[in-house]
């Protein structure tokens, strides 16, 4: 990272990464399922095509298996500037009514604006916010595409980077904001905070502070659906880092073995904390790990909501039909640091000067913003009008602002509530005090 580049105007750099510069600077591109330009990379041929009614489609050498990965190499995996306007994925999404198309937009926009607003509040410091915050910004197309293929009564198990999942599954922004403020009117009444916000009434089995905790949660929920004879499906979200957990292989293997209606959705943002996926995964794609299990594996452009929706729809159809699990890997990128907002600024996108990556790669990926790409796609295809989108944007802004006020007006939890909710029916003993009731006066 040269000093010259860091000084360069962000707009100029972004422009360079866009239409004019992308094809020249980007070494290869990651295709979407419908692009048709990708070269098959699956290690087991025969796992693609009509057999699963869905192409497994890939166009890059894959980020994994490269011990020589250097900061900046994430630029090699930039998708094309625009998402395809024709092909099966485009057709599938375009066949939905305009209201639903705007719903996808609203989901991504709400996630983006809500998290960006929280980021700005953390950085401003006026609200005294504290605690871990793992921003999903940049990865919104995966949550929107997957949840768009689910029903309200389906289950999801989320991660520490799961605000976007919650919003896409119908989470209430007011109660989310209040939880970030650790207020009593938050989703978790102040017990959980960012990493644990959840709404069990919407089939969300929790965000989770433990890497790799989602596989069994979702697989178990899928078993319950089988036991009860419903056609519900369950989705486990996880990151490239979590794929290293032995739980991953264990859950996928047993889900195949027991034919469980579960979908494993890998959000490969190319980095776990400060370690690039290339250095910790020996295979081109993380999804390659389980290809020997003979189930569909869709490796898609994770910043293309049409591609994610397409893959997720195929996986959901398959699971509902009693045909078992699917693995989906979306290649995407985290705009911010692993946790918190070092290198970030109020009102600006992305965290800069993070030691394990370059500003160019961050800006390159920002230039492949899934929301902007979807907006362009919608307008190019004439599916909605600019006014329609503007109305969604304005409504989201109002909803997010209102949620911040809701949080600010909420009350602090009662300190003594700290001994509640560990068991269903009794409080824990106040063992922090000599006389168990409190400090003697």
């Amino acid at each position, binding site marked *: 990272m040269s000093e010259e580049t860091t000084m360069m105007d962000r707009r100029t750099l972004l422009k360079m990464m866009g239409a004019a510069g992308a094809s020249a600077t980007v070494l290869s591109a990651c295709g979407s399922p419908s692009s048709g330009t990708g070269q098959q990379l699956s290690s087991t041929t025969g796992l693609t095509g009509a057999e699963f009614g869905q192409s497994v489609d890939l166009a890059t050498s894959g980020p994994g298996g490269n011990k020589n990965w250097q900061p900046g190499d994430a630029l090699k995996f930039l998708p094309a500037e625009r998402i395809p306007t024709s092909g099966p994925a485009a057709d599938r999404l375009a066949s939905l009514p305009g209201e639903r198309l705007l719903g996808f937009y609203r989901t991504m926009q709400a996630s983006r604006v809500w998290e960006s607003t929280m980021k700005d509040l953390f950085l401003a410091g006026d609200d005294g916010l504290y605690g871990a915050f793992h921003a999903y910004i940049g990865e919104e197309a995966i949550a929107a595409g997957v949840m768009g293929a689910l029903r309200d009564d389906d289950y999801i198990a989320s991660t520490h980077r799961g605000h976007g999942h919650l919003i896409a599954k119908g989470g209430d922004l007011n109660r989310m904001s209040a939880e970030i403020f650790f207020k009593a009117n938050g989703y978790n009444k102040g017990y959980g905070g960012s990493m644990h916000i959840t709404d069990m009434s919407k089939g969300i089995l929790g965000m989770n502070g433990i890497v790799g905790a989602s596989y069994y949660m979702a697989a178990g929920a899928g078993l319950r659906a089988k036991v009860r004879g419903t056609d519900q499906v369950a989705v486990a979200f996880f990151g490239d880092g979590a794929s290293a957990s032995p739980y991953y292989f264990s859950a996928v293997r047993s889900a195949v073995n027991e034919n469980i209606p579960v979908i494993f959705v890998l959000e490969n943002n190319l980095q*776990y904390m400060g370690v690039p996926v290339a250095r910790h995964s020996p295979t081109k794609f993380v999804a390659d790990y389980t290809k020997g299990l003979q189930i569909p594996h869709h490796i898609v452009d994770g910043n293309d909501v049409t591609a994610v929706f397409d893959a997720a729809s195929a996986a959901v159809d398959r699971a509902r039909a009693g045909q078992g699990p699917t693995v989906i890997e979306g290649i995407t990128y985290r705009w911010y640091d692993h946790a918190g907002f070092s290198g970030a600024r109020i009102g600006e996108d992305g965290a800069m000067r993070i030691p394990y990556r370059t500003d160019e790669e961050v800006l390159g990926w920002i230039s492949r913003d899934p929301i902007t790409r979807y907006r362009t796609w919608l307008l190019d295809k004439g599916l909605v009008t600019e006014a329609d989108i503007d109305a969604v944007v304005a409504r989201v802004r109002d909803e997010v602002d209102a949620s911040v006020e809701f949080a600010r007006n909420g009350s602090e939890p009662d300190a003594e509530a700290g001994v509640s909710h560990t068991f269903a029916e009794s409080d824990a003993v106040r063992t922090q005090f000599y006389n168990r009731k409190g400090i003697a006066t």
Partner: protein
Amino acid sequence: MAEQALRIRKSYGYAQLEAVAWEMRNDPDMVYYYEYQVPISALPTGEILDLANEFGPDRTSGSGWPIDEQWIVGAAIGAATAGSKAIARLPSMAQIYAVEYVFNQAGKIRAMTGGQANMPFVLWIDGSSRGRGSAGQHTDVGAEAIYANLPGLKVVCPSNSYDAKGLLHTAIRDPDPVVYMDYPEVRSGQQPDVPDDPYEITLGQAAIRQEGTDLTIVAWAPATVDVRRALPEIANAGISAEFIDPRSLKPLDVETLARSVEKTGRLLVVDHGHYTNGFGSHVIAEVAQAVPGARYAKIAFPDVPGPGSGTMMEWLRPDAPKIVDAAKQLVRAQSA
């Protein structure tokens, strides 16, 4: 001035890596594996310890191994069983993944093989804290009680940089598995000077941090931080408190603890771990058997997952005001 300069010279983390580096330089078979805690630290003078670079990929985890704690611990225990001194370093919330292999292999192989196998293995846990904002899985303190309950394991809990380095040397050289609990709360604040040369702190040797005659307070990292905050006010209340930090929990220096309680007649244990079966219960059980007739009390974090809200968390912590209150009531109760 010179003393001040010396004090800020070496960070807690540097002191620890200094111990590891010395041992690795003197034993080419020794290995050190970790997840993302890349072992690099620098002195203000510019001197850098970079263990991954110095010892290479097979003896270290380089720039970080995958998030697979079973692998990190398993590989280290495998190397140790075959004869290498080995360290596995894990973050707090993930340590439980390691328990199976530690439980079934590290602590048992020597006995199961009739004494054939050595297990020069150190499980280094980057502990958590009772801090606000993380909630549940990232707030657990007190896992030393779990490890101490397992046969074949030794457990240490350093509470300052001097002990941290000395106990690490001792743990690495010990032919048996040692769990090294490294809690973040003890890293800040004023630290003792740390010698550059290697030194050991004998396991099972408690440190008397303050002498007194009315009351014995026992706490180990990180409760030592709260006890230190409470001591001035306890003194202001006219109570002469003796403060003992066991440093090594297993083996435990029961003799030093018992001698103190024989003198004071009262023992207050402060435990940041959960109450039920926390290590403090064992401290009281041991001392009570040695000193019948004394008065005993324990305050500990309740049996609840740590909440995210700072308001709730602060109330739940057995912190300085609660320690002062407990000290006063314990002394008052006996005199009444």
